[in-house]
């Protein structure tokens, strides 16, 4: 009998963001359920807010912000 896994999100993003999500998952396992391709993966829906917060923090660290 096949198994149904509920509460997932299919995330579509650019490869850079995908890699960041994989890095977050390494430090805090259980986020990524399945890698699909360079721009898509399945993640646990309950971890969405954590992913979002971590991504914003990491992208901010890697970005020079030019202020006028």
């Amino acid at each position, binding site marked *: 009998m096949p*198994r149904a*896994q*509920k509460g997932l999100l*299919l995330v579509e993003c650019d490869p850079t963001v995908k890699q960041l999500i994989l890095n977050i998952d390494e430090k805090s396992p259980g986020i990524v*359920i399945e890698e699909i391709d360079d721009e898509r993966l399945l993640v646990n829906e309950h971890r*969405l807010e954590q992913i979002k917060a971590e*991504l914003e923090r990491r*992208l901010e660290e890697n970005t020079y912000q030019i202020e006028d």
Partner: protein
Amino acid sequence: LVDQIYLWELEKNRLKATPGILFRDFLTDMEFDQAVEYAKELGVLVWESSIKRMFFITTAGAQPMIAFLKRKAVK
């Protein structure tokens, strides 16, 4: 019934997340193919991999798909 889709901007990167359900652990290709066909008929299929024998559908398709698989299991 339209599923909610999460969208947000990350600096210049856009991220889109579609809620749904993953079906896995099909014992045969035939069993897998029949379920994928049914998901297509329902119009709920988001992603499928015949190599991994997995597919992902929107939450709207959850109940009919589970009912379909249960009917198949009885036979």
